[in-house]
């Protein structure tokens, strides 16, 4: 398998360890809030780093990255939605909820890709960090629009729930889409990183740099256990849906490689990162919004797909594959 030896990096190996620990029914368990704390730390660290680098970056390239992040976030869910609807394995509302996950991004996959590139000594542009922050939200809005359109097609009329106090519910959902914790933390940390004085940044380095990979390993250990826990859910989904969890990231990865190279002009590392962003599926920001806004959809489908299939696929096979694709297109 191409690039297999490149996968022998601690982050990926800890993910595999977590996966294995759950499969062999080890009693390895994390304290309940540790994974949440680690994800907060990782988003803060990547935000500060990215923001600091971007403080010295070119404005035009940064704006171009934002533009293409929005384009990817808006178009990928539409592709996913129609693939799922035509597969006839889920109804249109489940298709809308699942598709939204595939237009958004997984910070865990992004960080693993960073670890992969760092370990293999491959330099990469910092602009994909902005794309990571931007791509969290547009797909959610597209998912909500697709769900509304699906309800109209299915003839479902949603009356105002008294408990939601009228329009407050819709406002709450949009607020969740654009101001959810991970978006605010990532964007805020980037802003802090961009304006902070270099001396202050040096003082932060032990926290945001030196222990970063260790924290990522711990986080991926837990995510490996979470992914393995969802294996039993595959039976409920069926083979076609499971195949979507592998094929959709491949489509996204291909589109991401083309955008990273042809539209943004990145090198191999940056192009790989854009491919990883386009190929990954959210399991942090999107599920809560879909649970609120599309309650008719089964969370088991979209969480199992994004966390149980796409995330492990990208971590083990996807990242080296997108790197290979980036090498091929940049070399050409």
């Amino acid at each position, binding site marked *: 398998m191409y690039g297999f030896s490149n996968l022998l990096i601690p982050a990926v190996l800890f993910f595999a360890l977590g996966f294995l620990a759950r499969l062999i029914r080890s009693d390895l368990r994390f304290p309940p809030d540790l994974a949440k704390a680690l994800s907060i730390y990782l988003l803060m660290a990547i935000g500060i780093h990215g923001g600091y680098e971007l403080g010295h970056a070119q404005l035009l390239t940064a704006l171009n990255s934002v533009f293409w992040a929005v384009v990817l976030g808006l178009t990928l869910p539409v592709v996913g939605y129609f693939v799922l609807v035509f597969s006839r394995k889920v109804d249109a509302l489940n298709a809308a909820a699942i598709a939204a996950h595939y237009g958004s991004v997984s910070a865990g996959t992004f960080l693993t890709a960073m670890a992969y590139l760092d370990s293999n000594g491959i330099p990469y542009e910092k602009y994909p960090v902005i794309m990571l922050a931007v791509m969290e939200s547009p797909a959610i809005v597209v998912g909500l629009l697709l769900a509304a359109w699906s309800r109209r097609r299915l003839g479902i009329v949603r009356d105002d729930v008294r408990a939601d106090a009228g329009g407050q519910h819709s406002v709450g959902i949009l607020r969740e889409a654009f101001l959810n914790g991970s978006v605010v933390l990532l964007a805020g940390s980037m802003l802090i990183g961009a304006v902070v004085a270099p001396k202050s940044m040096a003082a932060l380095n032990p926290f945001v740099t030196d222990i970063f990979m260790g924290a990522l390993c711990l986080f991926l250990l837990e995510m490996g256990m979470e992914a393995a826990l969802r294996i039993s859910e595959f039976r409920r989904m069926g083979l076609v849906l499971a195949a979507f969890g592998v094929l959709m990231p491949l489509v996204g990865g291909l589109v991401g490689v083309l955008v990273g190279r042809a539209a943004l002009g990145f090198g191999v590392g940056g192009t790989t990162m854009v491919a990883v962003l386009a190929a990954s599926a959210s399991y942090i920001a999107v599920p809560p919004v879909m649970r609120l806004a599309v*309650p008719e959809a089964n969370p088991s489908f979209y*969480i*199992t797909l994004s966390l149980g299939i796409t995330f492990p696929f990208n971590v083990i096979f996807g990242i080296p594959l997108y790197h290979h694709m980036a090498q091929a297109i940049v070399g050409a």
Partner: protein
Amino acid sequence: MKRLRPEKMLAIISPTELTETLTNMLHREGVSGYTLLQTSGFGSSGPQTGMLDIDTNVLIYVILSEERVSTLLDDLERLLRKGYHLKVFVSDVGLLTI
């Protein structure tokens, strides 16, 4: 046993995301207090390990009079009809008073 006042106890198991909606509902019904716990388990939505926000449920306990229960149950029923994955239990309890 004279010190026990008969009341109704609602136990609501809900996805974390609905917490604000539910607590707003309780406040509107004039409920003066409730207890909220983060929980894990397994259900139709798959495993709820409590490790990430996406797989954490909340369990809300609230004690209220029989008259108020009915209105609250109407609101909860509307949420269930919309497809939200809630479990609601109602039981008769005795509340210790002084």
